[in-house]
Structure formats: C-alpha cells, structure tokens
C-alpha cells in the first residue's frame, strides 16, 4: 500500500496538482503546496460556485463596492455609506459551538472594519436540529453564548437574525454571521497593497498553531466519524484584542496612515497577502522570520496558513511606518513590518535571506479551477402541490394555533436576544422581536433597517421558488417597518456540490435569487458560499440566507407589528392562496415536508411593498405584520400578543378545498404563501388607503379589540383563543425547551 501523496492529504486533486506544477513550471515545495491547497480550496477558491455566481445582479447607482472586497458598500446619501457582509461559520460551530460562533463574529467584524467602517450591528441566522436532542441544546446554548461573548465584548449590538430547528441540520448546524458598519465615503479602505517599496505591517495577535487547515480541511469537506478530531482546526477568539484592533485600525485610517488594510481570516497570511497583492496589481515579498509567534518551532508552512484570530495586515508608505507602529503601541498591540510591496506580481516567502516560496499572485487568487457539475433534479421535488384534502382537517384549530405558537420555529426569541447586548451604541429605533431591526444614524433624520431571512425547508421543496420567496420576504420585512429595500448580502449554505442533486439545488437557488433581486432592485453586494454541509452523506436543506439593508427616510416614522388600539380596522393586503406545502403547519401537525410551495408574484410583491411603505410614511398604518411561518392565524396572534389586545376576524371566503372555492379553513388559517401582509388602520383612513392601493388586493377582515383572538368564517367560529393563552404558549417556549431534559 502506498502512502497518499501530499497534495491529496491537503485536499487537492491530481489534476489540480498538475495544474499547479504547470503554473510554477516546476513541482511546488511543501510551503507552496500548503498555500495553494488553501487558495484553491472550495472555501477560498469558489471552484463550484464562481461560474453560477456571475449571473447575480451586482450593479446599482448606490453600490460603491460590490462583490470582491472584504464587504460590500452601499451609499445611503449625504456622504455616508453602509458596509455589510454575511459569512458562515458552520463547521467550526458544529465541532466547538462557543468558539466556532465567537470566531465567526470576529471574522465578519474584521471584514467590516477592514473597509474602514465602524461596525454598528451584527445579525445571526442560526439553524439547528430538533431541540428534543441534548446535543442540539448544547449547540444552541454554546453558539448563542459564543456570539454573546464576542459581540457583547466588542460593543457591537446583535440586533437580529433568526433561528430555525429542522432535523436536516442535526449533523451540521448553520451558524451564519452578518456584520454591518458605517463609513464616510472618504474613509473607505480597500484591501490593496500597491506602491513598490511600501511596507506590509502585521499587527494584532501573535501567530500560533490554531486553525491550521480551517479553510481546506474543515470548511471544504463533509463531516464523517473523524469530525471530533478536527477540533484543533477551530480557532479560539479573543474579543478584547479585536476591540483594540478595531480602534487601532480606524485611528490609523483617521490619521491617513493607510494605503490598504486587510484582515486575516480563512487561509491566514497566505490568503491575505496574496489578495492584497492581487487587488493592488503588485507583488509582495514577505519574511516569515519576522512574524511574532505564539510558540517556538513552528514550520514555515504553519506560519503561512495559521488561522490565528485577531490579526490584520496594513500597507503603509515608509514615511508612515513609525506613526503606524506608534498607534499599535498605544493600543498595546504587537506590530511588525513583515514585508514590502514589489512589482513582480509574485508572492515570495523568505525565511531571513533564504527564499522558501515563490508563486504568481494571479495563480493563487484568480486561477483556481472551476467545475461544472451535471445538475440532477432530486426526486422529492415535484411539479404539483398537494391536494388540499391531502391531510384530514384538525378537530380543534385553537389547539393547533397554540401548538404552532409554541413551535421552536415561531415562538419568542427572547431567550436568545436577551443574551446579546442589543442596545449598546444606543441606536435601536426598533428593538429585536419585530419585523426587522431599525437603527437611527446619530445626527441624521434617516436610518437603516436590517433583516436576515432563510427558509431551507421551502428551498428543499423548490429551490428556485424558495430563493425567490426568501428575497421577497426579506424585502417585505423591511417594507413593513417603512424601510425601502436597497441591497443584499448572501450566505449560500448547501451540501456537497460535487453531487448532481446538490448542484441542481445550488443552481436553481442562485437563479431564483437572481430573478428576485432583479425584480425588487436589491443587488448583491457580496457574501459567502458554504458547501459540504453534510454529515455521513446526508445534506442539510439547501439554504440561501439573505441579509438585506433598507433605508428609512425618517426614523420617527416607522411601523411596529403589535395591535396598538381598539376598534382599528384589520386589513389583509396582497394576494396568494395559502398552501400546506412546506408550511410549519405541515411539519408540526402533520409531520411531513412535502409537495410544492407556491411561487411569489414578484411584480405584485413590489407594488404591495411600495403601498405599505407609502401608507407608513403617510402615518396611516397603526400596525403591520407580514404573513409568514404559521400562516395568517399566527400572524394575527403575534400582533395580538405584542399589542396585548385581541381581535375579531371574519374570513368570508374559506371553502371546502374543492375546485373554485376558497382554501379549506385550516389551510386558510395556517397555510403559507408569500405576498400577504396584515395591517391595521383607523376606520377614517380606510377609503384613502383603498384609493392608494390601486391594483393591490385589499380586504377588510376584522377589527381589533377584546381579550380574545376570534377567527370566524361564514358566521362559523373557527377558533377563539384568549390572548393571554396565546402569549403563554409563545413567550416562554424556548426557555422551557432549553430547560427541559
């Protein structure tokens, strides 16, 4: 038996190795091979995703920086811009939840201040297996604590996100992290090293053996029985050092000391230095003997690929060297000149005088091979939705409502967000728990709204429709606060793309996302692809997660979702026939995920959202809430709970599910479809709103008031639940699940 060749142990294929030899004109030495294995990993090289991602819309008048930098940047007017980016830290969190999540926050926060932006918010979309399993509780507890430990210490409020629990994530949880920052236009930095003779300064933490192979071994392969052995590839976070790194970076920027700034993330020094040279159209000579180390005896390749956290690279002119080092000294940070910019177009690694690596920058950064896979539509994807009488109707809809409100996918997230400092920086115009977070911008009338959305279950049934619905829902959430959707960042979580079925899901989802982003005019400013989310050959639900930015013209004119007065008229805006397919009702009550989800009508969606925003701006909307998980009944119940008052609702068009009639009562109550919004207005405003609505369907369905939520159809009472009972089911469900044994 022959030993596996070195390249294979590092995750490269034989063909890729040959390709590397061709580009070097010789065989690589081990240092070079280790660097190539990182840069050409799926995680850094986007080998299976690059060709498809090219179709995403990236342009727009307000886009100052699209994909390709550490973060996207969006102009919001009057000289101010917003930087944002979302990333995954799925595999590290599945192995070591606390540090995995903590360093996920650390990494995405560095991406934001590497652009010169001061981080103003984090959002964390999380997906786990069922909380009935002890391991999943351990993961949730650890991930939330990790996010809290890092974000709270940094003084960056975690203001949103979402949590889903589905069996499909049992072996491979998803921990996505988004960070948003603000920056004056003239303060924007790029990760560029240019100007021959300029210096490369490494500052922040020392370099150790932690996180070796994080990008190649951990992030670019499926989990199997050896997962536990990969724990040493997970890094350990130090938010205190990162806080100092943030302040020192922005102080250097403010003092005009930086030519370029780059963080060290996946791939460590190798990736950061080669990307800086690539963006600057330059080369870099680097002396690893100058890198401050955490332990003695580290091999050169270890220094080059270490993913030790809390490190940055700065490019400065020789004249600014002393001033830059002085800023680092003020913040008690190690800082060392480790290299200089050249015009060679090559990344050259030295140990003292001896050159131990010499590679073309373009080969490392731009020339990783790309792969196209023949897509295969999985058998569970079907063309027809389930018949409406596929499941028997429930005997007690009120009991169904209470059960859905207590579902881990619907119940209050308070247990989570109370562990996050969501108020620091004092900008929250809308606190967690609403449609989206809204932040004021100090000294300005306008503000920003932020939301993340993902729904793997729907994407599993139809990845194209699912992705369209995810983008539409994010935009709808923002519009329901009064914010105009502006741009997205995406985190595409999928299984092993070498499999035709997974590739099909990825392709369909990217195309669906493209359609929706084009229709809603929300271009993609960057993001992250996370493949190989599989354990023991079982893939997660395909899960394109969207982080969306909106702009509110006036933070004093935003809407909330709680019923706020008695006797207000309740309206159902938009259209769409609710379906059981892919709904929380189907999963929770009927124990299945099957059928085909309804598609979103993007043109109508756009009009609906514009109507909602205009009505909010005009001060007509008293409360507004989009219909999503748990359907119309849960939507009404959530507004009732939040507002502490009930409602009487009459759904006159429930039918028996037969052709031509309305949806069956239970599907009317709990079915899901994109494109519906519940709003309350004063009776006096109703006619004006009708005029404004144009061809957006508008139906009066009831009035607020009383202590119960009553829903009737054709004079028959479908359900009647005291708001206090609904609140009791919804409020503490997550706490109870976490405390149960």
């Amino acid at each position, binding site marked *: 038996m022959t030993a596996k060749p070195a390249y294979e142990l590092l995750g490269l294929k034989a063909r890729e190795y040959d390709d590397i030899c061709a580009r070097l004109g010789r065989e690589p030495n081990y240092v070079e091979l280790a660097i190539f294995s990182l840069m050409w990993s799926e995680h850094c090289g986007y080998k299976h995703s690059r060709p498809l991602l090219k179709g995403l819309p990236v342009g727009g008048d307000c886009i100052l920086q699209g994909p390709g930098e550490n973060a996207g940047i969006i102009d919001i007017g009057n000289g101010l811009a917003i930087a944002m980016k979302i990333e995954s830290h799925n595999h590290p969190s599945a192995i070591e939840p606390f540090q995995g999540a903590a360093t996920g926050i650390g990494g995405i926060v560095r991406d934001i201040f590497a652009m010169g932006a001061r981080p103003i918010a984090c959002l964390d979309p999380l997906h786990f297996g069922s909380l009935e399993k002890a391991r999943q509780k351990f993961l949730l507890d650890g991930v939330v*604590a990790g996010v*809290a*430990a890092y974000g*709270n*210490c*940094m*003084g960056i409020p975690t203001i949103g996100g979402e949590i889903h629990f589905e069996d499909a994530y049992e072996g491979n949880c998803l921990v996505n992290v988004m960070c948003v920052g603000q920056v004056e236009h003239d303060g924007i930095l790029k990760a560029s090293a240019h100007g021959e003779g300029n210096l490369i300064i490494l500052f922040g933490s020392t370099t150790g053996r932690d996180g070796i192979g994080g990008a190649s071994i951990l992030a670019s392969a499926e989990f199997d029985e050896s997962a536990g052995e990969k724990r040493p590839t997970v890094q350990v976070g*130090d*938010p*205190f*050092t990162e*806080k*100092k790194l943030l*302040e020192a970076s922005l102080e250097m920027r403010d003092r005009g000391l930086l030519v370029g700034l780059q963080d060290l993330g996946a791939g460590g020094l190798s990736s950061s230095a080669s990307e800086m040279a690539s963006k600057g159209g330059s080369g870099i000579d680097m002396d690893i003997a100058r890198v401050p180390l955490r332990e003695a005896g580290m091999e050169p390749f270890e220094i080059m690929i270490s993913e030790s956290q809390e490190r940055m690279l700065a490019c400065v002119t020789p004249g600014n060297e002393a001033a830059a080092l002085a800023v680092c000294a003020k*913040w*008690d940070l190690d800082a060392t000149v480790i290299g200089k910019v050249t015009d060679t177009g090559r990344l050259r690694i030295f140990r003292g005088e001896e050159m131990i690596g010499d590679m073309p920058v373009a080969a490392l950064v731009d020339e990783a091979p790309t792969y196209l896979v023949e897509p295969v539509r999985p058998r569970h994807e079907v063309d027809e939705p389930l018949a409406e009488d596929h499941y028997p109707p429930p005997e007690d809809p009120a009991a169904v409502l209470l059960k859905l409100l207590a579902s881990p996918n619907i119940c209050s997230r308070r247990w989570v*967000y*109370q*562990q*996050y*400092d*969501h*108020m*620091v*920086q*004092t*900008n*929250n*115009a809308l*606190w967690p728990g609403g449609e989206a977070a809204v932040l*004021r911008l*100090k000294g300005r009338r306008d503000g920003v709204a932020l939301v993340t959305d993902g729904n793997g279950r729907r994407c599993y049934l139809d990845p194209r429709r699912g992705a369209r619905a995810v983008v539409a829902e994010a935009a709808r959430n923002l519009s329901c606060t009064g914010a105009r959707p502006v741009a997205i960042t995406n985190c595409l979580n999928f299984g092993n793309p070498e499999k035709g079925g997974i590739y099909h899901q990825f392709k369909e989802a990217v195309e669906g996302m493209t359609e929706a982003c084009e229709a809603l005019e929300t271009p993609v400013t960057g993001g992250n692809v996370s493949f190989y989310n599989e354990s023991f050959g079982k893939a997660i639900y395909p899960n394109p997660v969207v982080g969306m930015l909106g702009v509110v013209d006036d*933070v*004093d004119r935003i809407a909330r979702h709680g019923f706020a007065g008695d006797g207000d008229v309740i309206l159902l805006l938009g259209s769409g026939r609710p379906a059981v397919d892919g709904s929380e009702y189907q999963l929770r009550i009927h124990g299945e995920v099957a059928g085909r989800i309804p598609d979103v009508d993007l043109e109508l969606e756009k009009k609906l959202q514009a109507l909602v925003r205009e009505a909010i701006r005009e001060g007509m909307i008293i409360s507004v809430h989009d219909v999503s998980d748990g359907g119309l009944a849960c939507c009404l119940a959530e507004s009732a709970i939040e507002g502490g008052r009930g409602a009487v609702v009459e759904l006159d068009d429930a039918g028996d599910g037969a052709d031509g009639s309305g949806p069956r009562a239970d599907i009317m109550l709990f079915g899901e479809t994109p494109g519906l919004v519940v709003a309350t207005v004063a009776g006096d405003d109703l006619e004006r709103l009708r005029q404004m609505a144009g061809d957006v369907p508008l139906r009066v369905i009831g009035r607020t008031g009383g202590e119960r939520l009553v829903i009737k159809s054709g004079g028959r009472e479908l359900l009647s639940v005291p708001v206090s009972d609904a609140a009791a089911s919804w409020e503490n469900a997550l706490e109870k699940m976490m405390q149960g044994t």
Partner: protein
Amino acid sequence: MTASSQTKASTARFGVVVFPGSNCDADSHDAVNSFTGAEARYLWHKDTELAGLDCVILPGGFSYGDYLRCGAIARFSPIMKAVRRFAEDGGLVIGICNGFQILLEAGMLPGAMHRNAGLKFVCKLVNLRVENAATPFTRAYAPGQRISIPIAHMEGNYFIDAEGLAEMEQHDQIVVRYCDEAGEVTMEANPNGSLGNIAGVCNRDGNVFGLMPHPERVCDPVVGGADGRGVFESIMDFLVNKR
C-alpha cells in the same frame, strides 16, 4: 476643590474614561453632549491628570477584556489613582456597569459582584425604584419614583455581608433597586440575583455612585425611552445649583 462651586451648564466639564475594552464610552460621551448642555472629553486609561473636571464617568464595557474578574485589572490602571484622588477631593464619579464593577474592585464603593444568578448575560429593560433621591446623581427624580433603564451584563449579582449592608442602609447608600411595574421590590423583578434587589449604590459622602443599569442608553425617546436622562440632569443640577 476639584469641582468649582459655581459651575454654569456650559462650563461643566465631564471626563469619560476610556480603558482598552470600554465600549459604552461613546454612548456616555454622547449622552452628556446631547442632553446636558455640558461638554465631555475622553480620558485615556494612562492619563493621571483630572484637573478642571467636575464629573468623571467610568463607562460600561469589558475593560482589559475582563478575562479575570470584571474590573479587577482596571482598578490597577494609572487613571484609577487619579480618580480616587478626584473623589477624595469631592469630585463626582459615576460608574456604569463595568464602571460600577471597577469602583467595587477599587474599594471606592462597598460590596462585590457575583456572576448573574441565571449564569447568562442579560440585556433587557428593567424597572428601578429610586431609593435615595437626594444624591447628586438622582436628585432630578422623586423619592420612590419608578424608572425604566436597561441592563446588559454577565456579572451584576450584587453582594455584601450583613454588617456592610446594615451600614449602607444606615447611611442611605442604596440608591436604586430593581422593582416591578408597580414599583414593588420583588423576587420576580430581580434580573440577576442581587442581594436586596440592589442595582446601584453610593459611597457615604454621596459623590461616588455605581449602578449596573445604563442610564446613557435611555436619554432619547427615539431609542426606547428617556428615563435615564434624569441621572445627567441630576448631575448638572448639582454642579450648577450646588449642593
């Protein structure tokens, strides 16, 4: 005297200490500048000179990372010697959250912190009852007034031995307690296990005040409330209209 005896609002001087790891320094700075008519400046942890200041704020955050006990390293920082002298000379010192923890570690206020009873970080709006409305930090409130101010901490579970507690009660040093909507001090209203629901205390002279809740976070209704403004108004009233 550090604090001049006839201070006008426009000339009142606040200093906000920046330790490495402070993260509510900007919020405190902003609260002073936006809502008091006075001016705040930042003080670096290595500074040793506080001349000309009327009030020093030790802000929230994670000074020096707080990897040891919260505030245990900050108490040794150069500026804390100056802060101690400043307080001994009658200057006003307010420690918010981490600032409170530092004042406890420095022995400038009685008591100590345990980790929260729930062992988790807690960030939420809580109700406080103003037990002593005669201090320079609370005189804008009515005695017994209920105010809503958020907390955000992992170690705010206040403890002091029985003897110390009796002494504090005797000298009216318990300034605010966690209470419910109705202003009742109950077990249910206690977010972190603090002894006697204690949320904030002052020294015997009344010029050093520490509290876990964050008044600087609720000075502007657009971000959810303005009950915290009273703390800054109290300080201004004390500085301008005097004791």
